[in-house]
């Protein structure tokens, strides 16, 4: 059995830059869904402590070094960048999600404006500060959206929809560039 070759969701898509803003494929591994069982949050947090993480509040994340735990929905967060610590599985359902998501990054001065085409959310800095993570639609797709810096976002969509997400964000960026050029 030869080794199987891994392929990322957007392999072959070179970054796109318009108005100093770049759309690129990102990466994050491993991704483990952590879903605490009812009444076991204390023990979940105890198990997470060695990583320096705690279960995040809704729309938030906790991070320590390369490891982060981002809130992804009701009773659920994704542990990214570190394997699940021992003992966590006793108190939370753990599910490998590493391959389930395509990751896109959008960085630059018009990142916010670009996303406010397909995302029906108030992404103004005051309302959506860095390290905020939300579940939200990207047009007709479900997405996990994180502001990683004032001018940078990470967008996770179902892996099979990566090309649609890429196409829609590219179009939004192109349109903004054309608007800027003719303003």
């Amino acid at each position, binding site marked *: 059995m030869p080794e199987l070759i891994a392929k990322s969701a957007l392999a072959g898509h070179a970054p796109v830059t318009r108005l100093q803003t770049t759309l690129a494929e990102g990466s994050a591994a491993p991704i483990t869904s952590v879903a605490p069982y009812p009444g076991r949050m204390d023990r979940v947090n105890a198990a997470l402590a060695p990583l320096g993480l705690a279960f995040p509040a*809704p*729309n938030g994340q906790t991070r320590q070094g390369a490891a982060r735990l981002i809130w992804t*929905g*009701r009773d659920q967060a994704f542990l990214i960048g570190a394997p699940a610590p021992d003992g966590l599985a006793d108190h939370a359902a753990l599910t490998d999600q590493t391959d389930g998501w395509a990751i896109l990054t959008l960085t630059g001065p018009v990142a916010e404006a670009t996303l406010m085409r397909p995302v*029906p*959310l108030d992404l103004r800095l005051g309302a959506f500060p860095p390290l905020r993570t*939300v*579940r*939200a*639609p990207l047009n007709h797709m*479900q997405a996990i959206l994180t502001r990683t810096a004032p001018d940078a976002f990470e967008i996770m969509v179902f892996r099979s929809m990566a090309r649609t997400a890429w196409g829609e964000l590219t179009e939004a960026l192109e349109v903004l560039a054309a608007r800027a050029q003719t303003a």
Partner: protein
Amino acid sequence: MRLTCPLCGERDRREFYYYGSEDYLNRPAPDAAPQAWDDYLHNRDNPAGVTRDLWYHDMGCSSWLVVTRNTVTHDILAVEAVADRKGGAA
């Protein structure tokens, strides 16, 4: 129309899936009379005014919500998570 999801915050109506009256929460006992099942599945107060109905935060956190709202004015009066309601668990 905007609903304030108890977890995600205020969101546009397009993020939610609508089911129907909160009657769907009051599942009769398996051996309840046929009339109880008929009422549960079909018959509705359907008020022109304040109602309580079920919404699902489909594009968000996957919470099922009970929304108290007015069917005439579209005012949203309250939103609570189905799972968090008192005595909600079977």
